[in-house]
């Protein structure tokens, strides 16, 4: 895949933007402290310190949500609360600007990132940059943007009933976090070459629960600060801690599931039924094509599992097919293997969609064209990818690749879906670059 080549500029770009934001905010804070006599940071120091620590801790315990998303719910909620704090302990109004919020958050994020850098864990600058952007949006909306008569929400809110303030806070958090989702979708769709709208839909669906939890928690902490002081910050982050724990569990089991399927897909290889790496190569190609064709995340997952397991039906054969290449086997045998595999997968009782995809993986495309048969897109993708990999083999020479593509083109429209073959050609072109 060419992601390596493309990731660099994207990551560098978001890194540079985040750095510029941070430096700008920090410069503004220093300017205010130096130049404005009325700006006194000292009474705010305890609040700032506790928020700083909360964000650092939250960053250290970053969780990866199902899929490839990385989030730090506790850090984000703490930063949102910091952005929307109206009163520090002892009843002093919190009159700091968005610049302080951005500078402190950025600094805390950088500190929180350190342990994973030291341990050599891969981390994405773009994830951090997106979070920082969301916090910046929230802080600007709450503290700086003039709403009426040149006064910001922070200036307007004294005297408001608390529930109205809470509503405003939740709305602002929701908006800011949606901005983060949009940015994440841009990054992701560039990376996976999937249509932006589809990626945004997937991202938003996956994040909607957390957005609600984060928005509520940010408002909770900010509203509880007047009566409880800085104690409000750890106490009111506690319910979100449960959420974070649950999300972590969820993503662990998702990852485990994926590993299990991948390992089971290797069983036919270790048993000598198929070529080493065939299943995972077919899955990788199918995944790229699925993204390219704008399939939803859920469908892509089913596609990936079906692609990984597409040859599992071979375990019921007494003797392996020579070379394991099903494309060279007789059509009746191909169908039987597909059917046996689908039956095996159906036994699980939880992978019915995958079984349907596997069942239809040998059906010719002409069945759709001529008989109007309903053939899942995923099955058509697997059919093409399987044929390509069987004919091209491991690390094919350009000549062999062209030969494989030529043979697939011979079956275009009859055996294979032209849309899928087009997408395959585009994916292979990208690999060349």
């Amino acid at each position, binding site marked *: 895949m060419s992601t390596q080549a493309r990731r660099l500029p994207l990551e560098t770009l978001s890194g540079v933007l985040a750095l510029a934001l941070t430096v700008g905010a920090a410069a503004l804070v220093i300017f205010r402290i130096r130049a404005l006599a009325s700006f006194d940071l000292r009474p705010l120091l305890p609040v700032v310190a506790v928020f700083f620590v909360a964000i650092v801790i939250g960053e250290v315990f970053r969780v990866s949500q199902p899929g490839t998303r990385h989030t730090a719910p506790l850090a984000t909620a703490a930063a949102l609360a910091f952005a929307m704090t109206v009163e520090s302990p002892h009843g002093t109004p919190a009159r700091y600007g968005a610049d302080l919020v951005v500078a402190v958050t950025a600094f805390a994020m950088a500190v929180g990132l350190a342990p994973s850098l030291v341990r050599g864990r891969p981390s994405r600058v773009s994830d951090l940059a997106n979070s920082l952007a969301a916090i910046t949006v929230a802080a600007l909306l709450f503290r700086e943007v003039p709403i009426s008569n040149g006064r910001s929400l922070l200036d307007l809110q004294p005297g408001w009933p608390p529930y109205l303030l809470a509503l405003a806070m939740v709305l602002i958090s929701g908006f800011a976090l949606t901005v983060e989702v949009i940015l994440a979708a841009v990054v992701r769709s560039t990376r996976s070459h999937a249509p932006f709208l589809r990626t945004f839909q997937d991202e938003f669906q996956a994040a909607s629960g957390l957005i609600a939890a984060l928005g509520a928690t940010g408002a909770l902490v900010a509203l509880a600060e007047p009566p409880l002081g800085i104690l409000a910050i750890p106490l009111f982050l506690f319910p979100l801690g449960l959420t974070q*724990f649950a999300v972590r569990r969820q993503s662990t089991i998702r990852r485990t*599931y994926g590993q299990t399927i991948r*390992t089971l897909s290797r069983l036919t290889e270790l*048993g000598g039924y198929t070529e080493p790496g065939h299943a995972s190569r077919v899955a990788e190609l199918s995944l790229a094509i699925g993204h390219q064709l704008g399939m939803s995340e859920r469908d892509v997952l089913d596609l990936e599992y079906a692609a990984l397991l597409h040859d599992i039906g071979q*375990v019921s054969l007494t003797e392996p097919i020579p070379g394991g290449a099903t494309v060279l086997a007789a059509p009746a045998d191909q169908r039987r293997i597909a059917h046996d595999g689908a039956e095996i997968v159906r036994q699980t009782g939880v992978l019915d969609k995958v079984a349907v995809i596997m069942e239809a993986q040998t059906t010719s495309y002409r069945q759709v064209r001529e008989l109007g048969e309903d053939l899942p897109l995923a099955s058509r993708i697997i059919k093409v990818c399987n044929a390509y990999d069987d004919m091209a083999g491991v690390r094919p020479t350009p000549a062999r690749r062209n030969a494989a593509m030529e043979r697939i083109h011979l079956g275009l429209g009859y055996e294979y879906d032209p849309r899928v073959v087009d997408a395959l050609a585009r994916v292979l072109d990208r690999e060349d670059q």
Partner: protein
Amino acid sequence: MNDTGSKGRSQNVSVPSRAVSAYIAAVLLGAVGLAALAWRVHPLSVNAPFRSDVVTLVVLCVLGVLGSASQERNVGGRIGFSFTSIILLAAVALLGPFGAAIVGAVTYLLVVNKQRPEVRLFNIGMTSAYGAIGGFVYLLAGGTAPESSIGGVWPLVLHVGLPMMVADVAQCLLNAVILAGIVRLTKGTPIRRFVLGMLGTSGPAYIGYGLIGFLFVILWVPAGVGPASALLILAPLFVARWAFVQYGDEQRAHERTLSALVAAVETKDVYTRGHSERVAQLCDLMAGSLSLNHQDTEALRFAGMLHDIGKLAVPTRVLRKSDQLSEANFASVATHAASGAEMVRGIEFLEGSTEAILHHHERMDGNGYPAGLRGEDIPLFARIIAVADAFDSLTTSRFHRDAHTVEDAVVELRRYAGAQLDPAIVAALERGLARHTWEPTRLEPTLMATAGRAFDHDDPAVSDLMVGLASGQRAP
């Protein structure tokens, strides 16, 4: 309540016996008495802030009903949230004992789930009673109705937070005791055991409920958010609950996928059909006798389920061969342990199982394969699987003999203990079998016919045959 509690509540009392009816009546009467007392001691304020108290009461009742409707589903992994507990606790602080008793009663009076009338009556009585008791305890522990004038950390912690925690503990205990009574009457479980069990599983959760209830109250009154605070407080909890439900579903899906696919692989070898699943069950049973922790039990179960996965790499014709096996054939069968371990390498959650799969054919006398390990050098899980393997092989029918009965199989195992199997593990299996019933697997004659005279590598007698082979194979 929590998982144990909800099970206790929704249990089937097919025909309420006289004792059970009397118990339910007593609980209901007690609840009414407590509510009356609560009204005398601390009535709802009917004067100036009348409206706000009534609003609070209505809002909390609605929340209670919604909360109880959402909690019946088992979340799995022993994690359950009790929204009702949190709301009842908030009622204790916000409304006092009478209000809490009303919220408790209304919650189960209007609960949407289908419940038998006597179960519903019992739940109404129990929840109302411990709402009232919680309210009394709160007042006794120095709790005051949180006023918006209370400010500062210490007054809030001392006069609201701590009394709520005390009331929380009292409610937890009372819940356990009342439930224990009904379970004693319907199922005969000793009260002491039930109470201790329930405190062990759901006690820690009550600390969380106490804390969240406290946050709820602070937001409601001192922060002035009022009824809207329910939305803010419960949002992260609902999301957490949703994620836990997903987690439970996926975990079940994962296990089913694994076992179904393993079963598919077993189709290569008729004899071993269902064998892996049974070995996994036997491992589970022994894990209980050896008091392994939850995580180890999981790893052991997976190892048991996957211990023969390496057979996929053994040519089918060797597995189905009916005449005398050559030494080369034995050697080929013996590779399955190593290839199995190789196959599962790279799956994080099976890291603890790899060793067990690799060494499950080692013998205590060092004549096993693949490494010829001896005695305690053999990983514990591998020794456990070896016993389960041999036991299942003996209790399954073979072409030359019928399935052994459980008693006969145990006698056989004792014969092999020492040289082949670990005596301590065999004893653990016996203890496990004393607690659970085990049915020998009698294969259908037709199935036996297709299996032919294929040999069974798990049979302890075959292990003796293979001894020579291992010594030839052992690494220099």
